[in-house]
């Protein structure tokens, strides 16, 4: 089982969710984060004082998937998130040892979906 973390542009979230749905990956979590990347932020100005302003708003999504779903998931995220511009983001894949469905106590692959 894999734990997939993706950092994407906020306005691509809906597209990524749609693509994941198409790939039959329904379950996902999303959170708003600040990211420092290659895409340079615009310096913020407060009463003439310039902030470095290196952090930009991004969305991070996390999906736990069975190994067979890994590639479809990566493809779906890539498809939904890619604009071809700097700032499109990254996908990180981590290995996951165990997964438990709290409601039923099921574990392993069956608990993922």
């Amino acid at each position: 089982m894999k734990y997939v973390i993706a950092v994407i542009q906020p306005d691509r979230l809906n597209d990524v969710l749609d693509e994941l749905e198409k790939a039959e990956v329904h379950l996902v979590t999303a959170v708003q984060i600040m990211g420092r990347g290659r895409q340079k932020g615009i310096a913020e100005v407060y009463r003439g004082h310039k902030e470095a302003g290196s952090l930009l708003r991004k969305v991070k999504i996390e999906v736990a998937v069975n190994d067979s779903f890994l590639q479809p998931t990566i493809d779906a995220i890539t498809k939904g998130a890619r604009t071809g511009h700097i700032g499109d983001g990254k996908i990180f894949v981590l290995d996951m040892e165990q997964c438990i469905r709290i409601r039923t106590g099921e574990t392993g692959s069956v608990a993922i979906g």
Partner: protein
Amino acid sequence: MFRWLIVACVSMLLLGGSARAESDPPTGAPAGTAVGDSTTPPASAEVPPPFDKADTAWMLMASALVLFMTPGLAFFYGGLVRRKNVLSVLMQCFMCMGLVTVIWVFFGFSLAFGGDTAGGFIGDPGQYFLLNGVGFGTTMKVAGTWTTVPGQLFAAFQCMFAIITPALILGAFAERMKFSAFTLFIAFWLIVVYCPVAHWVWGGAEGFFGLGKDGALDFAGGTVIHVNAGVAALVAVLVMGKRQGYPTRISPPHNLPFAVLGAGMLWFGWFGFNAGSAGGAGEGAVRAFAVTHIAAATAGFAWSLIEWMRNGRPTVLGIITGAVAGLVAITPASGYVDAGGALCIGLGACIFSFIFVAVLKEKFGYDDSLDVFGVHGIAGLWGAIATGIFAVEGFGIDGKGGLLTGNIAQLGVQFKALLYTVVWSAFASFVLLKFVDMLVGLRPTEHDERVGLDLTDHAETAYTLVE
């Protein structure tokens, strides 16, 4: 930088100096001298009647209330956009407060309320340049009638109206107009659209096209303000096109409580708007106050009911949208109807706006970001027509009231006034938008729109996320 400051200082002194030179002796005599006996009023041979202090007390307050509506509108609109654009909306509202006032002081007021020029198309811009000749302690003749409050107070009250009208429009193209384009557009629009229309309806002796003489009823500016702004909004929407991702990729309102706060401020301020349009603290103000409240409440309540029947759940955004639609619709009628009429006008405003906002807009597929046309335009049109229906006897042409009291002619006159306003507003707004597009371009780059106007136009973010 320093060059600019020097220029500014010098021009400031010149301005101050010239203001001094042109200014007539202060209309208010020093303490001890009776008001108005030694000073000859500047622009009229007649002696202006003294102002009424009770009327002045109310109009001071009413003017403050109308000013307060613009921050209210800022929050009403600001709460509905996305996080990344909320400051751009607030900024545009405050820009109206700043820029419109400056224009108004220089020649805007004079354009709207100066003597007929160009055949009554507009007022004489020089007459009250820098508000010279408008008395702080003397009343003023507007369209043949004397105000009962000092002229400067009348000018200030009207200034608040001039501020909020362009501010209303901005909801239509929120999240997708460059700030530079916005600034130019409202400056031009104020001068080319607002001032003439205000002059026709309120300021002219007879009005261009004789709008004034005809007896069209518009108590507090339903046509001048709401229809005018609503039509300009629709034109802007069509000229500018949709936001990126509209309609499926637009997040819901980022902060609905702000929109509710704004609605509360608007309702509160609207008492100044409508009851202040009576010009004093008399029967007209009382009538306007009472029916304004009733129409707002009815429309808000009715919107909830419609949603309840249609979707099973009444929404907060619905009830406040309804209330605003009711306030818009009662605006032209507020001095002329009674409680029954207010109920009907509120109900109608709610129904027509709802159909536009929830049904037709999706059908037509245009992207009026915050439904300025659906709410202000439609409810404004209905209000203007409804005034011709529900006006009670004692008002309207020869005091015959509206359609329900048998005065069909009134309805015709209402349509005529609407027609002129709609045509002029649509035409001139279109030309101005195209012109501004040529000058600086209306829309931000695709990247800027995606990142959000707060950061790209104003170098700020509304809320810190990590601190």
